[in-house]
């Protein structure tokens, strides 16, 4: 199953959802999409806008063979812990998908580190699926340094 997710942002992500709907028509594999505030409704895939509990999204990440995601921090943070291939399409301001082009930063840094495949032009999305098996994805572990630092700060403040 291919799970497509565009997070909680208040603007839609028509470009990605439309293209994934086109791809879904051509392939055998099941496609499930979380479309958020996107107005376009897929015809060839199961879809929903939001969930009421994070567990439902986690469950879809677990079931998925490939994850296709916007470059939002929350989504990628969770998606990376599953050790599955992730194709990232950053939302861009010029298409009315976000208020700025800040999603490029995370897409760039994670694709340079080989943790995700970044696709900037949706016309190249189909091709990206051919490359997912070539890359070895490992699940990214939680960094404990920030947590211990915060813990220590709070302890010091309490005294």
């Amino acid at each position, binding site marked *: 199953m291919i799970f497509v997710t565009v*997070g*909680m*942002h*208040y603007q839609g992500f028509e470009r990605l959802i439309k293209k994934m709907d086109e791809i879904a028509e051509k392939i055998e594999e099941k496609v499930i999409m979380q479309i958020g505030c996107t107005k376009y409704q897929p015809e060839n895939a199961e879809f929903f806008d*939001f*969930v*009421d*509990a*994070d567990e439902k999204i986690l469950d879809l990440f677990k079931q998925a063979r490939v994850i296709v995601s916007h*470059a*939002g*921090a*929350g*989504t990628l*943070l*969770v998606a*990376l*812990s599953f050790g599955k291939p992730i194709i990232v399409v950053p939302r861009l301001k010029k298409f009315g998908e976000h*208020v700025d082009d*800040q*999603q490029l*930063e*995370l897409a*760039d*840094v994670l694709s340079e580190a080989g943790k995700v495949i970044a696709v900037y032009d949706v016309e190249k999305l189909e091709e990206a699926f051919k490359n997912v098996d070539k890359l070895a994805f490992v699940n*990214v*572990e*939680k*960094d*404990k*340094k*920030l*947590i*211990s*630092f*915060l*813990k220590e*700060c*709070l*302890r010091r*403040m*309490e005294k």
Partner: protein
Amino acid sequence: MKVCLVCSHGGHLTEMLYLMEAFEEHDVFFITYDSLRTRSLEYKKYLLKNIGTNPIKMLISFFKMVKIFLKEKPKIVISTGSEIAIPAFYVAKLLRIKTIFIESWCRVKSPSGTGKIVYHVSDLFLVQWPQLLNRYGKKAKYVGAVI
């Protein structure tokens, strides 16, 4: 110690939830935006209307923060963003409550609008990528990231 966690309802909340272990010895409550997701959040919480870029909603949220802080009397306010941190941090400053701002993991090399505004009033200001340090002043620290 009473700790107030302030964040919007999407990725910023996910980042905060990744850090919960840091607060396990404390009495925490959230101030976040009202959404399907936050209604089922299993912590004590205050749900506000999404401020976005609306100045009137921003103004209203300043008064809401005053009310919440006077009632709850937190010792510290911690935020991972986004703009909901602005009224929280300025009101905290006014009421002499300590603050920690953690810039979002998605801010790799450019500061967030919220970060730039709350930098001046934060007691501790953390970024999650070392390359972002030189875009802020001396107060900014890098000690690690959510992952």
